[in-house]
Each structure stands twice: as structure tokens, then as C-alpha cells.
């Protein structure tokens, strides 16, 4: 076996796996420290308000995975149209895993550079959770996303174990490296067995299915050239390895396998390896000898490692539906502690294909459903989520929606991540939109910039009621801040007649008090907006009157005020003010109001007076108007009368029509 080649393969594999050994001092005693600090070291804690997702480092995970989630949704639209989407879905799954991995690596970097013990511990805790998430995600990917033809899962499972327990391979790499150096330096043999970890490492990589590395390590043994070692190498070299795309059928392979194992067993019985006990042990392992079970167990950290190791030497073509049996078996064989950790439970559930319980368990994890929502979504996209209720109806869709709703709502409650939450709620029809309609207006409108963002989101989703609500809230907020102009600007956007009526009244009140308008820059430029409500139309027109009056366009001002008074627009309490404002126009040197106009004004005055009198009658004891009003009415009437006489004379002398002739006659 070529040592260099094996080494190269290993280094390639190890690259990208960060050296967690650097933080050994923390990793060795986390539980103890967590306990003293009162932090639950269990990876499943009750979801608290302060989700770990809101940690700055994990926010990257939230945001980046949201992008992946959305590209998944885009993909789902094309799923119905046929074609093979398996590679795309696998890519999606890998992208999620790489996001987790990057985030986890960032956390380890923080742990290394951080000075504070508490910050370090938190980061360590988060990294620990992410490690477990990735372990499970990877297993899901193997079992449900990246399904191989023939359902021969063991090669992938071994890959999974190798990826998450890289210590064996890492140690093998160092041994191979020093060995190769010694050979290069001219030593006759590498003598690697002097390394106290040598045999442990050999067995470790063997149990992870790295036959090539095992052989490379054996070559570095001082006795590598002796007969037992030569025999062992032959055995290992001839070991049949199942390759899905190799063209061998499972039956043929199994026959080859049995023959090869029988061959190895007979060699052991012949005592070929007796001279070296360690070597004999290795041969017993590959022969599937049950007597070495205990040894195998001692070399495994966890039960699923034991499961894959024993399967590799007893049933290499195991199908995924048999896994739950083997898992159970391995768990019992691994034994030692009876209490099953959450992680073990999840793996067991996955191997049993009990996805509903997996998702239920995941929702309890410390990441506030991040994992549950993305995994559920992926499985849903893959069409692997088939969960039946008591009536045998597939409720996968409901489950998917429920998980999305939960996660989206949780994010919406966050001060800054609410925008991400919206993306998830977008993809759970029909309840998502309903929920958005409730949640969007509930976001505090701290600034106009924020209001614009929320409005835009509502607008894009055609949630017009939300847009209106936000405008109204902004209007009343402006009003509270004593900014009538801004309040009106927002009220106009809401196109709410009551609100604009109210604001227009406030403007008019202000005018009645001070004799001038606030926010003329806005009122003079209302344009078609003034049609939102009657009162606003009046306000707009009334401002126009003032503009005309100021610019000395008296004729136009007069006709505007006449049309205003003859319409139903002016509020009752404003009619007198309007009529009073006619006085200067009536008293102009030049005649401005025609006889007809004056008639209209006069009748307005009469109606107003009667109304005022009846009003006074009904609610007060005194039977007459107050002096000021009385005087005003008197004054207006006087002006009107004078104007009428002037008008009749001028109109009569200028225009020879029947009306004027009648005046002349009289």
C-alpha cells in the first residue's frame, strides 16, 4: 500500500475540519462549568424568550439560511413540472449544512480569541448545539435526501461517522506522516508501532471502514515484511467492497463476501497471525468474530459508531429499513448507561423513520425551531414527509405549515429580525397571510423609515388594510407631536375620510383662533388629494380662496366663495366666518359680486340666522343671539344690501336685458 497516497487522501479529508483539539481545556470540562454557572448543558432546553438564535453569531445563520430557504421555495415551484430535482435538493441540503458548519467554525474562532469566560462558555454551548444539529442533518440527508439506488446505506453511514468523529483519521495522518519521514530519512523501517496510540488508531480507522488507511498503517510496522503481516495485507486487499455503481448484484457480492470471510477465518484458525496478538485481533474483527465484540465496543465513542462498525463486518449490504433493528441491537450492546440522551433518541427515531416524532423533538431544541423548520421544509420538498393521522389522511402539509408559522411568528417578535420572519410566513398559505395581517401592524413604528419598510411589505402582499392602519397610526402619532401638516400627509395616504375630516377641522379651528393657516405649503398643494373627504375639499378650496385673495384676483375669489357657500361643504360654525370675509370684497370700490351672487349670499345669511336662533332656542335660556354675532350679522346684511343696490344699478345700466329694463322702469 502506498503510504503517501493514503496520506494524501487523508489530508484532503481532514482539511476543512477545524482543530477542535485546540480548545481541549474547555471541551473536557464543559458540563461541570455549565452546572456551576447554571446553564443547562443539555442540548434541549426549554425555548426561552432569548433564543440562542439572537446571538450575533447565530444571526448570520438565521439570515443566510433564510436565503437558502427562499431558493428552496423557488425550486419547489418547478418541482411539479417534472424533471429530476434530486441533485438540486441535495445541493440545498448541503448548502444548509455548510451554513451550519461555517457558523460553528466562527463560534470556535470566537472561543479561541475570547477573553471572557462566560462569552466563551456561551459560544461553546452554541457550537455544541450546532455540532449536534449537523450530525442529525447529515444523517437525514443520507436517509431521506440523497437516496442511493438499491438502498445500500452503509457506505454513506460510514462516511457520516468519519465526518463527525475525525479523531481516528487525524491521528492516522500524523502517524503516516512521521512514518513516511522516517522512511525518507533512510531508516529501514518506520517502526510506527512505537507510538502508544498505534494499534488503537489502526483499529479506529478499520472500524470506520478505511481499509486503505489500515493497510498503510500496517506497512509502517517494523514487522511489515514478515509473513503474518504479508498475509494480513492480502486479506485486507482482497476484501470485497460493495460499490453501488460497480455492476455487481447484491447476491453476487454477498457470496463473494461470505467466501472471503471464510477464507480469513480459516487463516486465523490455522494460526497464521498467532505471532502478533494485535494483528490477530484485527483479523478477527474483519472476520466478523463475535468474541471480539467487547474490544470493538471499547473503540467506539457512541452506540451508532458501534452499529456501523459491526454492520461493516457482518452485513455490509444492510438496507435502511433494517437499521432500526440494528440500532436497537447496538444500543443494547453499547449499554453502560441506561438513560437515553435526546440526541440518541433523535438518531434512533430517524433510523426508525418516525419523522413526526423527530420534528416534535426538534421543536423542543434550544434553537427555537430553526432546525425543525428547515429540516421539515427540506423533507417536505423532497416528498419524504408523509405523516398520517388516525383517518389515514396525509397531514404533512399541515405539519409543514404549522412549523413555518411558529418559526415565522417567533422571528416577527424580534426587534430586528422581523423582516426575516415575513419571508417564512409568506410561504405558508393560507394562514401565513392572515397572520401577517395581524403581526405587521403590531410592529412598533419607531421611525418613518421603519414605517416605510412595513408599508412596502404590506403593499407587496396586497394587505391594503395594513397600509391604511400604518398610515393612520403615523397620522395620530404626528398629531400627538403637534405636527398637523405631517398628520394630514399621513392621513391622506390612508384615504380615511373620518380622519381627514377631523384633521381638516383642526386646521379650521386653528385658523379661527389665529387668523392664519398652519402648513400652508401642504394645504396649497393638495391637488386631487383634497377629494378624500368633504371637509378637506372645503379646506382646500378655502385655502385657494385665500391665495386668490392675496394675489388680488378678487373676481375669482368672490365666485369661489359664492360657490362654497352655496354648496353643503362649509361646516356650520364656519359659515359666519366665510360671510364675514365677504365684507371687504363687498366694500371694494369696484363691484365684485353680481346681484345674483349677492342674492345667494343673502339667502345664506338668512338661513344661517334662523338656524342660529333655533339652536340658541333649544339649548340656552336666553332667547337672542349674543351681541357680537348679532353685530356681525347686522354688518354683513348692511354690506350685502349696499352691494345689491350697487349691482342692480351697474348691471342695469351696462347690460340692456329685461331684468335691467324692469329696474329702470321702477
Amino acid at each position, binding site marked *: 500500500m502506498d503510504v503517501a497516497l493514503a496520506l494524501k487522501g487523508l489530508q484532503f479529508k481532514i482539511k476543512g475540519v477545524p482543530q477542535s483539539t485546540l480548545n481541549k481545556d474547555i471541551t473536557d470540562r464543559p458540563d461541570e462549568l455549565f452546572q456551576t454557572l447554571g446553564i443547562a448543558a443539555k442540548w434541549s432546553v426549554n425555548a426561552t424568550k432569548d433564543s440562542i438564535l439572537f446571538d450575533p453569531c447565530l*444571526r*448570520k445563520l438565521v439570515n443566510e439560511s433564510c436565503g437558502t430557504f427562499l431558493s428552496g421555495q423557488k425550486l419547489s415551484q418547478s418541482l411539479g413540472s417534472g424533471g429530476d430535482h434530486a441533485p438540486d435538493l441535495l445541493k440545498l441540503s448541503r448548502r444548509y449544512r455548510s451554513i451550519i458548519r461555517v457558523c460553528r467554525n466562527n463560534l470556535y474562532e470566537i472561543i479561541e480569541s475570547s477573553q471572557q469566560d462566560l462569552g466563551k462558555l456561551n459560544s461553546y454551548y452554541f457550537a455544541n448545539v450546532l455540532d449536534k444539529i449537523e450530525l442529525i442533518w447529515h444523517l437525514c440527508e443520507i436517509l431521506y435526501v440523497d437516496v442511493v439506488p438499491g438502498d445500500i446505506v452503509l457506505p454513506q453511514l460510514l462516511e457520516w461517522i468519519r465526518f463527525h468523529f475525525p479523531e481516528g483519521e487525524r491521528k492516522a495522518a500524523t502517524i503516516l506522516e512521521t512514518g513516511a519521514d522516517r522512511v525518507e530519512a533512510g531508516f529501514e523501517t518506520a517502526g510506527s508501532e512505537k507510538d502508544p496510540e498505534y494499534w488503537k488508531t489502526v483499529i479506529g480507522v478499520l472500524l470506520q471502514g478505511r481499509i486503505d488507511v489500515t493497510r498503510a498503517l500496517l506497512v509502517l510496522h517494523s514487522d511489515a515484511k514478515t509473513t503474518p503481516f504479508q498475509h494480513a495485507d492480502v486479506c485486507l486487499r482482497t476484501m470485497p467492497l460493495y460499490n453501488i455503481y460497480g455492476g455487481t448484484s447484491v447476491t453476487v457480492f454477498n457470496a463473494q463476501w461470505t467466501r472471503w470471510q471464510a477464507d480469513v477465518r480459516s487463516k486465523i484458525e490455522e494460526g497464521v497471525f498467532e505471532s502478533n496478538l494485535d494483528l490477530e485481533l484485527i483479523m478477527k474483527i474483519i472476520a466478523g468474530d463475535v468474541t471480539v465484540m467487547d474490544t470493538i465496543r471499547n473503540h467506539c465513542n457512541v452506540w451508532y459508531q458501534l452499529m456501523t462498525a459491526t454492520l461493516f463486518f457482518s452485513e455490509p449490504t444492510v438496507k435502511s429499513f433494517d437499521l432500526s433493528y440494528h440500532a436497537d441491537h447496538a444500543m443494547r450492546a453499547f449499554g453502560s448507561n441506561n438513560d437515553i440522551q435526546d440526541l440518541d433518541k433523535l438518531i434512533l427515531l430517524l433510523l426508525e423513520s418516525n419523522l413526526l416524532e423527530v420534528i416534535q423533538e426538534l421543536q423542543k431544541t434550544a434553537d427555537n425551531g430553526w432546525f425543525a423548520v428547515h429540516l421539515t421544509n427540506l423533507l417536505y420538498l423532497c416528498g419524504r414527509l408523509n405523516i398520517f393521522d388516525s383517518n389515514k389522511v396525509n397531514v404533512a402539509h399541515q405539519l409543514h405549515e404549522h412549523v413555518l408559522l411558529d418559526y415565522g411568528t417567533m422571528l416577527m417578535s424580534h426587534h*430586528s429580525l422581523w423582516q426575516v420572519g415575513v419571508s417564512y410566513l409568506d410561504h405558508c398559505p393560507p394562514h401565513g397571510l392572515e397572520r401577517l395581517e395581524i403581526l405587521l401592524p403590531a410592529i412598533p413604528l419607531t421611525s418613518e*423609515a421603519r414605517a*416605510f419598510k412595513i408599508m412596502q411589505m404590506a403593499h407587496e402582499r396586497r394587505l391594503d388594510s395594513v397600509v391604511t392602519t400604518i398610515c393612520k397610526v403615523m397620522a395620530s402619532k404626528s398629531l400627538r*407631536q403637534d405636527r398637523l401638516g405631517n398628520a394630514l*400627509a399621513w392621513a391622506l395616504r390612508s384615504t380615511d375620510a373620518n380622519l381627514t375630516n377631523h384633521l381638516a377641522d383642526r386646521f379650521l379651528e386653528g385658523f379661527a383662533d389665529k387668523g392664519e393657516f398652519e402648513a400652508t405649503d401642504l394645504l396649497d398643494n393638495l391637488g386631487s388629494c383634497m377629494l378624500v373627504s368633504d371637509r378637506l375639499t372645503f379646506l382646500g378650496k378655502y385655502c385657494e380662496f385665500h391665495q386668490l385673495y392675496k394675489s388680488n384676483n378678487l373676481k375669482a375669489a368672490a365666485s369661489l366663495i359664492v360657490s362654497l357657500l352655496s354648496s353643503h361643504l362649509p361646516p356650520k360654525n364656519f359659515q359666519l366666518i366665510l360671510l364675514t370675509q365677504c365684507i371687504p370684497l363687498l366694500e371694494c370700490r369696484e363691484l365684485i359680486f353680481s346681484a345674483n351672487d349677492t342674492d345667494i349670499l343673502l339667502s345664506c345669511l338668512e338661513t344661517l340666522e334662523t338656524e342660529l336662533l333655533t339652536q340658541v332656542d333649544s339649548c340656552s335660556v336666553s332667547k337672542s343671539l349674543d351681541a357680537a354675532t348679532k353685530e356681525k350679522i347686522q354688518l354683513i346684511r348692511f354690506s350685502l344690501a349696499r352691494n345689491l343696490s350697487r349691482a342692480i344699478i351697474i348691471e342695469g345700466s351696462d347690460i340692456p336685458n329685461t331684468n335691467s329694463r324692469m329696474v329702470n322702469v321702477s
Partner: protein
Amino acid sequence: MDDRIQGTFISEKISKVRWKPESGFESYHFVTGSWDNEDLNRVTLWSCPGEGIDEKDDPCMVCEKPITGDVTELKFVQNDQFLVSTSSSSVELIKIVGVGDAASTVLKPIVSWDKLHPFKTGELGACTGFATFLTDVATIGENGSIVSLNLEKRQPIRIIESADSCSLRCVLYLRHSEILTGNLRGQMKKWDLRVADDKPHMTFMLSGDQVSLSATCIAQHPTQQHTLLVGGEDGSITVWDLRQTSYAVPLAAHSGLVSEMIFHADRPEHLFSTSSSGEAWHWDTSSVSRSVRPNQNTPWTGFDPLQNENPWLNTDAVKHRLNVVSLMPTLHKGINSVDVNKDKAVVGCDNEAVYIITDVLNSRM
């Protein structure tokens, strides 16, 4: 995504992003300002991997400074000094000290002007932006006031209390002492800061029919200063010629609020615009400008250079020749800011990421 785009997640939503100017040389530092954080927002200085280093490396954080309130505008006034305005009604001048050595670089506050835009009730309103002209600064606020500052003076020079009855959303110096503001309803006002009375000397509406849509940002053509581009809430970009006050036709551009527009400082024929609908666009008018640029070697072609040299004022005629390309694929969250330096663009987004895009000019020629 394509090779030229490098995204980095920075764990906070970014409202502004600016390259640190290097007197016309290529810049390797940029500053981001964040918004919508629960307690404190931040301005952060980042360094980009320069030449010789693997281009694929993420930008690294050099140093940061907490800011109260959302960052609403950020602009450099010198190579190592920038101004930042906040939603908590203040403007602060910050100096980057010791940029040579990353470990000892700090963002040092120099001057801070607080409580610039209070409402009548005493409550503080957001400072929504500012414009600069040499050492002069004009800030605008949600309370509708304009405050004129000078970098060398601690007290405001002038305050136009009720410049606008609505919130002011954008501002620009047209020339020294003359500014243009845009408000919540798209009403634009021109102010001469030397004139004592608090009245604008010109007012016009962004859209002709007075439908109230907010003006969101203004950009002035770097060389032809009478050309103004105003971005609107509906995603439209309106081009104004200040020499004529006639009504301009808005260009239907983005599908959401135009968050920022910026002309390339050295190559004014390139414009960059971003929107809250997740678009970042590069408008290349060089093909239009070049075809009509009077050339000494070629005979007079009959074009009237004054009429045609500026494609922005003649968009109807050159519409089919305006080259608009996306800087990056449309994002699922809003893009709030863009800045260009030489051949690199940086954009800041609501998905808590900054994207650095290289080769923005060359590859598209």
C-alpha cells in the same frame, strides 16, 4: 452567485455603506452603519483583502463604535473623517485614527451636534439625512426643520424651524449656500441659506399630479450640475433640469422605494441605484454619451451637443440605448445603500449582509 460577488453576513441590518476615500486611489476600507438594532446600532470600519491576498477572503472588521439610534446617513468629509446622522436627532463627526495598523485603529468621536430636530412637544425627531459642501453641513429632520452646521463650529449656524410642515426625507447642496430638500409628499423646495427669511425660493412637486409620494433620495450629476435625479417611494426616478422648471417625466425604474442613487465619482456616465425591493442596478450611459461627445478629430456631425450630451435629460430619445444591468441577482430583502470606488461596488442590505462586487465597470463595456 457569480464570482465577482462576495457576500458577508455581519449580524445587523445595514442602512449605509461607504468606501473610505483615498484621494482618488483605490480604497480597501469601507464603513457600515446599522439600523433597527434593539439597543445600540454601530458604525463599523471594515478592511477588504487587498492585492496579493486571496480575493475570496471576507472583509474583516477593523473596529466599531456604538451609535444611539438608527444610522440614517453616513458621508465622508475627509479621507479619514466621516459624519454620521442618527434617528436620535444627532450628527456626529468621527475620525478614523491609526488606519495603518488594524489592531490599534479606533473610531474617535470629534464633535457631536445633539438635539438637532426636536418636535414642538420637546420630543426628539429623527435626523433623516444631511448634505455637505466643503465644511458646511445641512441636516434635515422628521420635524421638518433644516439646520445649517459648520464642521468647525460647535453651535448650529442657522436653524430654519418650520421649513416644511411634513417630514423632510432628502437633501442636497446645489451649490454653496443653496440646498434642495424633498419631503414626505414629494414636494421639493429650493433654499438659499444666505437669505434671512425662512421661505424657499422655489417649490415644485416631484410628480406633476400632486399624488403624494415621498421623495427618497437625490443625486446630482457630478459634472453637469443642473441635472438632478430624484428617487421616489414608488421606485421611479425623476430627472430634473434645473435650468428649466418644467415638469419632468418620471422614469419607471425599480419596483420598490429607491433607497439610494450614486454617480461614479470618476466616471459620471455610470450611475448606481438600489431599492427596497432588493434590486441593485448599474446604469451605463457611456455608449450614449460617447456617441455624441464632440471629438476634435472628426468633423462636426450635426448633433447639437448641448441638447444631446446629457442622456439623462433626453431619456425618451435614448431609452433604448440606456444600458441598465443588475449589479447582483435581486435580493429577497431590501438593499439600503450602495457606494462605488474605482472598479468596486459595495452594497448594504436588510438581510444583514454586505456584498462587494468587483469589476463593475470593466466587464460590462
